[in-house]
């Protein structure tokens, strides 16, 4: 029981992280209907920015953790959004309106490019920082097994929940959200009605990147170790999460992320850890067979 609870906490943390990255996929998909394969690498870039920022702070002898976290978050969000913007501007915008596959290939190329650019500029070595948030609370001291939630785990879960609420509010209540949804439904029409489509799409990419930046900072705080390869697996898992939840749906991305985190945690806890990915993908297949648009996706009515 204690063991299961601990695995639940692990799964939730992992799932929250997947969810944060998945929202980036889902927002971009919603607005221009493409899979932004480079999103995982944007996340990786943000983790590197966070490492640099943390190291700078350590050099400046900043010891206040809240202050440090805020600074790193702001820095990471700023630069990562710039990356999100630049990627969209160079690799995707020229391809808008062409076939569905062209931006996909361009995105794969971008992903390879970013990975190698980071490797070249920052080195292939693993980048570690000393633990930022150590320790945690013991939730339940069961005999022989203490269930514990680390501060950094708590931070991840809380941040994710807060961001989720903020984003839902933004998409449903603000003028930007309205424009964003308008572009999702019909880009041409939105343009005709005076929505600046290019700007809205750019902003969407920047927001997605900003969320990836938050995830990047969280990863740095939680794992303390970053290398140029982390974007790949995280990207694939988050993409899976976005599809599982129904690509294009914000709550879906979050739900998908949590589900995948939990599936991985519990499958690895009770069954064969090495077949964890097989389980994840099989469940995805099953869900899609029953609900071809994912869990919370709008079912595509076959318009005849």
């Amino acid at each position, binding site marked *: 029981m204690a*063991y299961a609870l*601990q*695995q639940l906490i*692990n*799964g939730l*943390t*992992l799932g929250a992280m997947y969810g944060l990255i998945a929202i980036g996929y889902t927002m971009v998909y919603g607005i221009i209907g493409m899979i932004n394969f480079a999103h995982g690498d944007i996340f990786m870039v943000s983790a590197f920015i966070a490492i640099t920022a943390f190291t700078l702070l350590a050099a400046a002898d900043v010891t206040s953790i809240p202050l440090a976290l805020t600074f790193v978050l702001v820095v990471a969000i700023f630069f990562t959004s710039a990356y999100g913007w630049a990627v969209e501007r160079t690799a995707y915008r020229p391809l808008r309106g062409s076939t569905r596959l062209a931006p996909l290939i361009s995105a794969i190329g971008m992903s390879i490019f970013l990975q*190698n650019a980071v*490797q070249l500029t920052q080195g*292939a*070595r*693993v980048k*570690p920082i*000393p*633990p930022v948030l*150590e*320790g*945690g609370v013991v939730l339940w001291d069961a005999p*022989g*097994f*203490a269930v*514990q939630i*680390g501060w*950094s785990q708590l931070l991840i879960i809380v941040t994710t929940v807060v961001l989720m609420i903020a984003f839902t509010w933004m998409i449903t209540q603000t003028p930007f959200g309205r424009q964003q949804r308008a572009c999702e439904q019909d880009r041409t029409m939105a343009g005709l009605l005076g929505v600046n489509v290019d700007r809205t799409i750019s902003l969407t990419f920047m927001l997605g990147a900003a969320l990836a930046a938050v995830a990047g900072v969280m*990863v740095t705080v939680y*794992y*303390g*170790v970053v*290398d140029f*390869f*982390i974007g*790949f*697996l*995280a990207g694939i898992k988050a993409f899976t999460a976005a599809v599982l939840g129904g690509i294009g749906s914000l709550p879906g991305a979050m739900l998908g992320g949590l589900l995948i985190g939990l599936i*991985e*945690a519990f499958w*690895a*806890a009770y069954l064969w*850890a*090495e077949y*964890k*990915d097989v389980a994840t993908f099989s469940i995805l297949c099953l869900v899609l067979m029953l609900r071809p648009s994912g869990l919370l996706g709008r079912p595509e009515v076959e318009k005849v």
Partner: protein
Amino acid sequence: MKKTLLATACFALGSLSTAVLADLTVAIAGPMTGQYASAGDQIRKGAEMAIADINARGGVLGEKLKLEVGDDACDPKQAVSVANTMVNRKIVFMHGHWCSSSTIPASEVYNEADILMATVSTNPQVTERGLDNIFRIMGRDDQQGMVAGSYIAEAFAGKKVAVVDDKSAYGKGLADEIAKAMEAKGMKPTLREAITAGERDYSGLVTRLKQAGVEVMAYGGYHTEVALILRQAQQAGLQLTVMGGDTMTNSELVTAAGPAADNVMFTFSPDPRKNPDAAPVVEKFRAAKVEPEGYVLYAYAAMQLFEQAATAAGSVDYAALEKAMRGGSFDTVIGNLAFDAKGDQQAPGFVVYRWQGGQYDYAQ
């Protein structure tokens, strides 16, 4: 159907390959890009220094050495491509590849082209295929696993031990050998697990270890994962001692795992840095701001091996060189090298080390 493009490409490449024939060309190959690029980096630094030193002594048989660097990114297909490139560049000696899964297919290409190679790949298969051109200057996983397994069975008797690997050819091979050696000594692993390298979250594994009351984890795989596991174990309040293989020599482990790295033990050949004969070379590396850890000195030694074998043979012809290498005994920075019929290093001797405050040293 094909390639006007390729035709032009071929001309370009053809001219390239003839351009480099002036000196004796030797090569290294390994993962210069990709996930394991830091190992490739070590190899290159070691080899570059060795070539510089050899050339400063006047080269081999009066000719200067020239170094070619091949990048296989630990991908078997690219490894074959690299091997072909190297054959075309008429190299006389290859130090590499690094990943066993690259070394195995590439060695067949070198074998057909009559090129000698010295590798640090530890998979037994590397020398078990009856190829006469391959020499291993490192121990084998089975020897390594045996040393680690017996050590665990003796030093941690009565404790619960988990055996974990990362599903790579190297990691799984090592972990299997460790488990076998432990069982031979009458100790059964409490858990036998596998993880996926490249992931970041091992909290599931850590929780499982904690649940099972495991205190010692024997690990087959690379240092990055060990650092993550240790950090996450610490966070979960689990005191874990890790026993790993030669990959744990990488100082990244210490930077990444922090103080928890003091709980890492591993097997490795006797430390070349402790070799008194190597002291000047070690100093030289440190002066050049390169810590001669891991594979740096092995790469250096491989080049020394070539230098001495060629000098002994008086030629760089394959047959003569092969005979010299198989029969000879060579003094290198990693100690004395001599090979058995398969090409394995005689008396490789693994020792158990422990990290301590950022340095590793023999475990008591």
